[in-house]
């Protein structure tokens, strides 16, 4: 854990000396931003907030990204900060239902956030109240190797059947149609999300992840029947369950695989490995059932106020600042992601532009399987998808198991 006491403490001290600190506040922020880009983005955010609010003294604790996921449960109950970052959707539900997050609906109402942050409103709402403020999201979709597409004379597919037909061409040429690494199981969750969103649509997917639909429902089975068209002929890189998602990236870079279904965070490592805007392409997941509205996965990152926060007044000021269009433009420029505020500017990067266009015209935004479904269901579900990708013939046993889990969990 790294402790940062902002240099603006000096400004605060000066203000205090001159007797100007009318309502001086101590504001403690805990974040998991140990990676370079998020760290720089938060550094900028906090500096700007200090500049605008010299009377507040910010203390910023940075946790390791993975360790934070368990640490948050300890510090929420033991020594709560005034602000902490987390994720939208059902990922925040355990904290909301156990009373660890503060209701911040008033911040939303006072600042008109229901208009500016409209796209994230459903995923921030539980029991009709808002529990935090979103500041960034990113798109999911299919990244592809343009050179491989050119070599096989393949165009960007519009429908699932086109995609499967292209896969056959790649397979004949000894190239994996699509690659993935499901060792951590969530990339398999991304595949399921898109298969279900394209087969049954947004509302069905939300009902399913909220436990309102049985996993043994024939419409769920249909998702896997479609998915099997990709898996049974062996169009996916074999043994993917022993590969980390990062270790599957070289397949795309070296042209051993044609496509990769991933989040936009994959662009940075792909470019670092030598791909450019000329060789790396992006397209939205193809249509499966004609007429089903195009919904997308767009995981949203958020900031919340713990129920035990000591300085709620300044924490709410911080959230209002975070929600502003200019704040989000600047932060996401550094993050290389998309701002949630619809008045904010999007960076020039072609992948960001493509993502922005795709998401702003979408018929619904899902968070991601492990954020839409409750934690326990997410784990069992993604494990099932991982198994399906290795043994598509076991689908009935897998769905029966998921259905047992659904009955117990919800």
């Amino acid at each position, binding site marked *: 854990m790294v402790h940062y006491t902002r240099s603006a403490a000096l400004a605060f001290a000066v203000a205090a000396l001159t007797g100007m600190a009318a309502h001086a506040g101590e504001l403690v922020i805990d974040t998991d931003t140990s990676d370079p880009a998020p760290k720089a983005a938060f550094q900028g955010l906090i500096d700007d907030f200090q500049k605008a609010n010299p009377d507040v003294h910010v203390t910023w604790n940075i946790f390791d990204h993975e360790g934070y996921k*368990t640490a948050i449960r300890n510090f*929420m109950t033991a020594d709560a900060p005034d602000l902490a970052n987390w994720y939208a959707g059902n990922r925040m539900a355990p904290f909301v239902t156990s009373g660890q997050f503060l209701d911040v609906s008033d911040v939303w109402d006072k600042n008109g956030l229901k208009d500016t942050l409209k796209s994230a409103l459903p995923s921030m709402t539980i029991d009709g109240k808002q529990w935090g403020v979103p500041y960034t999201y990113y798109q999911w979709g299919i990244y592809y190797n343009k050179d491989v597409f050119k070599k096989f004379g393949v165009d960007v597919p519009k429908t699932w059947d086109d995609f499967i037909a292209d896969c056959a061409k790649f397979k004949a040429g000894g190239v994996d149609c699509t690659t993935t690494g499901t060792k951590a199981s969530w990339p398999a969750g991304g595949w399921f999300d898109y298969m279900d969103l394209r087969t049954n649509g947004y509302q069905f997917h939300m009902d399913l992840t909220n436990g309102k639909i049985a996993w043994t429902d024939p419409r769920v089975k249909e998702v896997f029947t479609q998915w099997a068209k990709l898996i049974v002929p062996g169009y996916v890189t074999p043994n993917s369950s022993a590969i980390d998602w990062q270790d599957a990236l070289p397949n795309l870079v070296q042209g051993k695989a044609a496509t990769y279904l991933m989040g936009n965070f994959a662009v940075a490592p792909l470019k670092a490995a030598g791909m450019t805007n000329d060789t790396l392409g992006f397209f939205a997941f193809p249509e499966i059932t004609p007429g089903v509205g195009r919904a997308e996965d767009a995981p949203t990152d958020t900031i919340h106020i713990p129920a035990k926060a000591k300085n709620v007044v300044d924490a709410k000021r911080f959230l209002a600042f975070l929600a502003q269009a200019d704040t989000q433009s600047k932060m996401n420029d550094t993050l290389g992601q998309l701002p949630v505020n619809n008045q904010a500017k999007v960076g020039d990067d072609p992948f960001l532009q493509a993502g922005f266009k795709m998401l702003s015209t979408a018929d619904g935004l899902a968070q991601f399987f492990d954020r839409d479904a409750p934690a326990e269901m997410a784990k069992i579900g993604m494990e099932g998808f991982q198994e399906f990708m290795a043994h598509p013939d076991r689908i009935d046993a897998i769905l029966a198991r998921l259905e047992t889990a659904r009955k117990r969990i919800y």
Partner: protein
Amino acid sequence: MSAPTASRSGYWRRNQRALAPLLFVAPGALMFTVYVVLPIFRSMSISFYDWDGMGVKKWIGLANYAELWSDPAFVVSLENNVIWLVLYMLAVPAGLFIAIFLNQNTRGIRIYKSLFFFPFVISQVVVGLIFSWFYAPGFGLFFKLTQLFDPAGIALLADERYATYGIIAAGLWPQIAYCMILYLTGLNNVAPDQVEAARLDGAKGWRMLWYVILPQLRPATFIAVVVTVIGALRSFDLVSIMTQGGPYGSTRVLSYYMYEEALSEYGYRMGYGAAIAVVLFAIMMVFISGFIWKMYRDETER
């Protein structure tokens, strides 16, 4: 230091023999109580609740334990723990074999000994990574070797039939080294006169090993078995690094499953995790009390 008062020094002098050992034990006992004994009882009490680690605890009695028996993931973990326990025992004879092989005086034997001991010195995390790459589909050495027989190759860690064995093989590498070093020190203490006498009586090879050397190595064997049993039961790091319990949960062991349920990214079931921990503790207690009973018997026999 100030001079002790007469009465205190008198009390101290009278009871010094009784108090001194208690004082020496006190710091260790305090730590042991706070960090080992109390958490054990705390885990036991948590295992009777339905609790997400943050909110309100709900008393559900033995429901967590009842659920364990119908939970296929728990059964798989338990089975894997048994496989670990049985196969890990191979480390004891293998360590003995290498120790006997290395127990000779040739040029540079110390270098060979340290090379054999090396895997025990490096971290389990590194062992896990090395073996992951060894098995890795596409470029791993083991994968390439299997391609000689089967053009598709066998990705050991992606196949639920072999993955657990792949991890155990990785675990055996440092464990054999550990047993080896225990036996090497044991072999130093083997009485040369007994070996000499046995040789005069015509004992050789297996008979020499079985009737003369091994009985003298009993203390080393005992420790080797103890550390191997405990090592097998607390296997966590290799599973976590090499497969994260996958593919689809087939390589989970109890300690990893407990972590997944209670503490991991998707685990919010403290009570259920605690129940798994209690079961693991009970299994360990069978072995630990056996060991303690044997040690107690050996000491009182003298």
